[in-house]
Each structure stands twice: as structure tokens, then as C-alpha cells.
């Protein structure tokens, strides 16, 4: 018995050594170095030199950063609210369809979700362009006088973001929606509630926690979008991810970029942990 136990332990150690090595070197390594560099001193015409200064973090209070942050937060919240409002009824209806239909929709949603941002932005820039865009179709149908170009612009940027986040939101809501007890709505119907009333008075309250969680996670997801603002938006509509990359690659200010990335990391982590806390609290409530 004791020999098999030791054998098992050795096997486990051996099995975990490779994942430990890979994640230790290539995950902890980069994040650790990034944290260190965020305290380094920038050197003009070179990369940086080791130091322990807070000046990179002090720049988080500059208007360059704060204006950008305010816009990123506003855009993220707007897109999260739009996506969840559209995706919620959609996912509810989808999770009650035939399995085959569900699978086809899931293939479609996954395909859209996996598309590179550059392809999405490029496609939308054509769709919203004056020469080949959708407005030509409206002119042809007689609904508009002359074709208009919307890209680049704020509307185009929001549309591009929603295109990216809508499938993501559906896939976030899908697990909890498919677990929602069908008896819940059936009971409401038996008691005489219309389908709409059952949806608003039973489904939405029961799904309160997944709704809040997906609002937060979609918001975090928007913080990572990088190419859509550059292709579909104007420079005043650029976001935090664009600023970080710009500082790291074009301004060669790697310490400041690292400080910004650490800020983004802590903010995102805090928000993600919040969804876990909300989830745990909800479970306790339901259990008691």
C-alpha cells in the first residue's frame, strides 16, 4: 500500500513538472519582469535602466492617461450594456431550441468570435464605407438620397465593438441560461402569466447574478480590444490598449507601458474576482 502511494506521488510530481516549468518560466517570468520594469527608469535612446522609481505610476495622474481612461471606461460600459441587452433574450430563446439548431448557432457564434479584430474592423470599414457600403443598398432601395460613409467614426467603433462582444456575451450567458430550470417558467405560465411576464418576472430575477457577471466580464473584454479603435475610430476614440502599445512600441517608453499594463492587470483582476464573489454569495443565498 505504502509503495503504491509513493509511486503515485512520484508519478504526480513527474507529470506536473512540465506544466510547472512552462507556466513558471513563461507566465510568472513575463509578469514578474513586467512588474519590475514598471519601477525602472526610462533612458532616452535606450530601453530603460534598473531603478526603483514611482515616476511611471505617477504618470497615471496625467491628463494623457486620464482622458484615455475615461473614454475607455465609457465605451466599455456602453458596449457591455448594449451587448447584454441584446444577448440576454437571444440566449434565453436559443437555450430552449432544438439541440441541432443550437449547435448550428453555436458554430456560427464561435466562428464570428474567433475572427481576428483586423478582419472584423476591415469588414465593417467596407460595410460602412461610402463607395461600397450598406448605404448604397439603401439608396438603391430609395430609402436614402445619397450614400454616406460612417467609418471612421464613433458609431462605427461602437458597432465594431458590439460585433466582437455579442457572440462573447451569448457564450457567457449560455451555461447558466441552459441550467435555468424550465419548470420555473412553466410554473409561472400555469399560474396564468403570459410568456413576456414570465420572462420579466421570473427569468430576469433568477438570472440576476449571471447578468451582472456578464456585464463585468464583457467590460473587461472590451478593455483588451486593440485594432478596432484604430481602424474604425478617430484618434480621440483610441483606448487604453492602444495607448499601452503606442508607449511600448512607438514611444519606446517601456517602463510607462509596463506601469499601465500593471494598472490594467490589477483593475481587470479586481473586476473578475468581483464576479466570483458575487457568484459565491448567490450560491449561499440559494442554499439557505
Amino acid at each position: 500500500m505504502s509503495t503504491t502511494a509513493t509511486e503515485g506521488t512520484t508519478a504526480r510530481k513527474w507529470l506536473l513538472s512540465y506544466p510547472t516549468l512552462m507556466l513558471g518560466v513563461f507566465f510568472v517570468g513575463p509578469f514578474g519582469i513586467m512588474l519590475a520594469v514598471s519601477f525602472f527608469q526610462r533612458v532616452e535612446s535606450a530601453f530603460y535602466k534598473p531603478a526603483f522609481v514611482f515616476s511611471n505610476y505617477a504618470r497615471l495622474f496625467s491628463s494623457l492617461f486620464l482622458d484615455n481612461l475615461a473614454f475607455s471606461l465609457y465605451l466599455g460600459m456602453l458596449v457591455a450594456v448594449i451587448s447584454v441587452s441584446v444577448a440576454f433574450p437571444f440566449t434565453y430563446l436559443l437555450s430552449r431550441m432544438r439541440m441541432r439548431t443550437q449547435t448550428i448557432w453555436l458554430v456560427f457564434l464561435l466562428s464570428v468570435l474567433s475572427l481576428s479584430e483586423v478582419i472584423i474592423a476591415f469588414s465593417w470599414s467596407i460595410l460602412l464605407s461610402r463607395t461600397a457600403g450598406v448605404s448604397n443598398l439603401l439608396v438603391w432601395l430609395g430609402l436614402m438620397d445619397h450614400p454616406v460613409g460612417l467609418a471612421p467614426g464613433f458609431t462605427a467603433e461602437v458597432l465594431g465593438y458590439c460585433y466582437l462582444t455579442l457572440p462573447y456575451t451569448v457564450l457567457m450567458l449560455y451555461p447558466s441560461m441552459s441550467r435555468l430550470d424550465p419548470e420555473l417558467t412553466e410554473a409561472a405560465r400555469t399560474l396564468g402569466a403570459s410568456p413576456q411576464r414570465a420572462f420579466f418576472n421570473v427569468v430576469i430575477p433568477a438570472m440576476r447574478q449571471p447578468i451582472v457577471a456578464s456585464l463585468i466580464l464583457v467590460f473587461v473584454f472590451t478593455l483588451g480590444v486593440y485594432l478596432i479603435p484604430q481602424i474604425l475610430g478617430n484618434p480621440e476614440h483610441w483606448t487604453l490598449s492602444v495607448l499601452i502599445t503606442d508607449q511600448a512600441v512607438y514611444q519606446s517608453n517601456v517602463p510607462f507601458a509596463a506601469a499601465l499594463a500593471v494598472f490594467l492587470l490589477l483593475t481587470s483582476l479586481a473586476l473578475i474576482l468581483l464576479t466570483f464573489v458575487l457568484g459565491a454569495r448567490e450560491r449561499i443565498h440559494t442554499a439557505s
Partner: protein
Amino acid sequence: MTRTVRNLYFAAVAVFLASPIVVVLGVSLNAKKRLFFPPDGVSLRWYADMLTDAAWRGPIENSLIIATVAGLVATSIALPLAYVLWRHRLLYAKILYGLGIAPFMLPPVITAVGFMVFWAALGHYGQFENVVIAHGIFLVTLPLMTISLGLEALDREMLEAARTMGADEKTTFLTVVLPLVRPYIISGYAFTFVLSMNEYIIAYMVAGFTVETLPIKIFNALRYGYSPVMAAVAVMFVMIAILVFGLIGRFGNLPRLLGRWEPMDR
């Protein structure tokens, strides 16, 4: 009445999600180089250009190699980790699992900056393998989640039976566990492959100036104006995604893979 509303709603979502793809498809088949509505003649010449022009072939090959190997890196980390976590429920394995899930949930620009300073500190900036490793680590979440799902669906009594019949852990793993979770391993690999093909910012920041992947090539080409070859490449991307996910949907249980709970799971 409700049915009609539902169908209209689904149609609207479908149109929203499909219209950019339809427009790009139209543009890619347009015979003229100038982008104009309505299209003028049908031709496959942009697809031929994509495959013969070295400026596009290089990035296509880069992306295919990176995605193929990054998928292997991610799956090779995920399989032993998910297995030990499921089999032995070690706290240490749980922590490693958390590390594996974390980067994917965070905005990718963070991982991008991390890998950039990492390779720069090692004096190894701009190399091909940087992208492979960065993608493998960033996307390890996907096989980790699919394989864990597959293992959770296994009946632990089967393991007990195998052990009673004298099989050691290795034999049990190879003859019982592995064949049953294989579809989940393949799905995890396929997810990683598709997402690696489409990933931009991490590839750009660890080696963007020396290794041109397909998304980087498209973005670079966009700066110099529009070319119909881009539309052909975009269509190819859509096709790959639909093909891969379609196969998973056809031969696997996609709803379950995406978290649908079924009563028989208990």
C-alpha cells in the same frame, strides 16, 4: 405571435453578424480592383493572388506553423495538468490551473507587454519561437477547460474497475482515460489553433517587426490602402473557423463543451 417575434429577432441578429462577412465575400469575388458598389463581374483572381504572391504566402505559412505548434504547446501543458487535478485534486495543481486560466481572462495587451519585456530582457526579442510560446501559454486555457470538462464527464467507477482488474495508473490512463477524453483534447487543440491564427497584438509585440503573421500582414497592408486580396484572406479565415467549429459541432457535443448542463450528467 411570439414565434414570429422570436424568428424576427433571430433573423436580425443573424443579419448583423453575417453582413460584414457577406460584404467581404462580395468584394473578394469582384473582378475590378477598385472597391465599388455594385460589384462588376465575378473572378477568383484575388484568391489566386493570395496563394501565389510571396508577400501573402509568407505570412500564411508563418501563421499556419505558429498555430500548429502553439496548439501542441498548449495541449501538452494542459493534458497532464488537467489529469492530475482531476485524479488527485492537489491544491498545487489547482494553483497551476489558476495560472493557466488567468492570462486568457485578462486583456491580451497585458500578456503582450509581459512577453515583450521578457524576451527583451533575455536578449531574444523578435524571434519566431517567441510567438509560438506566447500563443501556447496565452491559449492554454482552452485545452485546459475542454480536457477538464471531458474528465469530469468520466465515470470514476470505471477507474475503480480497471484498478480491481490489476491495471496500474499508467495503463488505466492509456487504455481507459485517454480514448474517452480524446475528443475533448482535439477540440481544445482546434480552439487554440483557430485563435492563434487570428491573434494580433501578442504576436505583434513579441516579434511584429521580424515575423509577419497573417493578421499583422493584413493590418500593415491596410495602412497602404485597400487591396481585394485582403478580402480573400478574410474569407479564408471565416472558412477555416466555420470548418473547424462545424466539425466539432458535427462530431462532438458543442453545447456541452460550451457549458450546457444536461440532466444525465449527474
